[in-house]
């Protein structure tokens, strides 16, 4: 059954971890969707729940427990799918790109064979020769010089940037309709990061896959994403079209993030940091999780949890006083 809803719909997702000190609500009622072919950036700082959300999609959160909500892919709830069907989706319809390519590549198997295996796993009828040709084609596509020779090499013979390419080749091998990239450029040097960003664009154009881009780097999102989802303390605080959110933010946390950033492209006299630090997820503050750090906070914020509300076309903010921010944003984007 092909539904008319977006490719991926995350609805009121909650994920908990049990620790010695209590239950950590890593994701606490997050909702957003990814349309076909769309690039959605999920941004947030450490502990915002962005990575846990991404890992939940493929059921890769080991010690955590899905405490509520649904993740629907092509209209089917992934949590209730039989293991066999979920395996068929992983690596074929939904593929992952990790921060560290060595977590995705097997060190004792040649890169070529790993791509061939990925291809044959989801297409049993593929001949050996055809799989080999396709693998070399994929390596060439991701900009691997001398792809045929590289096919026979092991991951340790590759530089960091080349491993990243090999991993992306493997991720797009089966023509996924959704790519999940978890901090794909973090820890890379600037010049290598630029190569990987170009490559993600190539991969996206080649496969027409929707991409869920998880990152803490607002620059990467500005460069690549169509839409952006801002997470804080396990919740989605703002989402919308990337230009709108960056130029007309309607949540004080987003405003704070943008004002905290030193800029490469212009002089900033003084950075305006967000005071304090993110809350403990063991005992999140009542009401709005951002209120202890928020310049707009008042009584209502301390008691009533703000729900996401539409503040513009395709633009949502979970702030009681989103309307007041309309006046402030010019300061940020001037």
């Amino acid at each position, binding site marked *: 059954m092909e539904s008319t809803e977006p490719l991926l719909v995350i609805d009121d997702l909650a994920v908990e971890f049990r620790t010695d000190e209590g239950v950590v609500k890593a994701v606490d009622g997050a909702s957003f969707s990814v349309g076909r072919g769309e690039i959605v950036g999920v941004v947030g700082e450490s502990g915002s729940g962005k990575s846990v959300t991404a890992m939940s999609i493929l059921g890769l959160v080991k010690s955590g427990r899905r405490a509520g909500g649904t993740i629907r892919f092509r209209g089917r709830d992934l949590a209730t799918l039989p293991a066999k069907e979920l395996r068929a989706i992983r690596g074929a319809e939904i593929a992952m790109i990790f921060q560290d390519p060595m977590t995705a590549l097997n060190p004792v198997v040649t890169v070529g064979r790993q791509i061939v295996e990925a291809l044959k796993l989801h297409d049993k009828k593929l001949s050996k020769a055809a799989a080999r040709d396709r693998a070399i084609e994929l390596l060439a596509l991701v900009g691997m010089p001398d792809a045929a020779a590289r096919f026979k090499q092991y991951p340790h013979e590759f530089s960091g940037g080349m491993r990243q390419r090999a991993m992306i080749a493997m991720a797009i091998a089966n023509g996924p309709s959704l790519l999940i990239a978890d901090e794909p450029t973090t820890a890379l040097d600037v010049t290598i990061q630029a*190569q990987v960003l170009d490559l993600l664009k190539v991969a996206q154009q080649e496969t027409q896959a929707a991409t869920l881009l998880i990152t*803490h780097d607002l620059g990467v999102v500005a*460069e690549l994403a169509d839409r952006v989802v801002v997470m804080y303390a396990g919740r989605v605080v703002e989402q919308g079209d990337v230009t709108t959110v960056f130029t007309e933010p309607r949540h004080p946390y987003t405003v704070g993030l943008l004002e905290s*950033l*030193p*800029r*490469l*492209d212009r002089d900033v006299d003084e*950075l305006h*940091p967000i005071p304090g630090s993110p809350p403990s997820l063991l005992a999140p503050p009542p009401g709005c999780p951002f209120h202890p750090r928020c310049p707009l906070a008042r009584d209502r914020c301390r008691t009533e949890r703000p729900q996401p509300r539409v503040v513009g076309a395709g633009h949502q903010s979970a702030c009681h006083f989103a309307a007041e921010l309309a006046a402030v944003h010019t300061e940020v984007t001037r």
Partner: protein
Amino acid sequence: MTVETAAADRLDRLGEEVLRVDDLTMHFPIRGGLLRRPVGAVRAVDGVSFALDQGETLSLVGESGCGKSTTGRMVVRLLEPTSGRILYRGNDLATMSEDELRPWRSKTQIVFQDPYASLSPRMTVHDIVAEPLRVQGKYRQGGADRVSELLDLVGLQPEHANRYAHEFSGGQRQRIGIARALALDPELLVLDEPVSALDVSIQAQVVNKLRELQRRLGLAYLFISHDLSIVRHVSHRIAVMYLGVIVETGTRDEIFAAPQHPYTQALLSAVPVPDPRLRGARERITLTGDVPNPANPPSGCRFRTRCWKAQAKCAEEVPALEDRLGAGHPSACHFPELLPVLPGAAS
């Protein structure tokens, strides 16, 4: 002596040269064979020179393996240089013995990148900050007051003193590291990626604190970072490093508005800018390949294997760091040209 009286002395000497590094090299031996004899060397730093004034921030920028951190560690003599001079107010620290170094150690201090690894988990905040005072025999006279003063200076509360480092967030730990570095009234701080491990909102707090401390105390900063946006924000002058050498150096405006070395241009063009409206409007120079092995750097210009302008001369002749364009700042390129790569930089 309180923080402010020591600062008054430094503030009188703003602009006076405090550090001059001259042709500094660090070659780490590679040992091999049965007898572990040296069979080669990683030339982590290979002839670096710069100067730093009181009250000034000089940033060393570059990617992993460019030698920026190794340079910083030599300046505070955590590493003994292979050759070259480290002139601290005219005194060469490079060749001093441990005993000779001791009085100078308090003048130059370092703050490390990882606030999780650089603070002892077994010591209270008070003891961490007091340790340099104890080592130098300065704790007996008013040490406890001094610690309170330092905690206040970096924006921590007095009641934090009896807690352990693990009870603090990353940003607070970095403040503890800064308080420790300031304990002995240094004139120069080496800041080695001091905010790289911190989240954006916290990063800004620490950056602001560092700038405030510099203004109040007249400190000189050698700021080591791979993050060009932060470097633009904090620096007076910048030296861009690649594979153990400085390829371009100048004031902040010279480097950001008028970069002339291809590597500087590539770096500046590669950083994603958090403004979706600029997407596609910037020309990005994408370098091919990776940084070569510093044990076996390319002949001539070290950047030539990744440079789109490389010619025969680049393989034969090492380009000196000089002002070939008469642009006011030097670069180490045989074929430099002014190419403003940032939006709004053309002038």
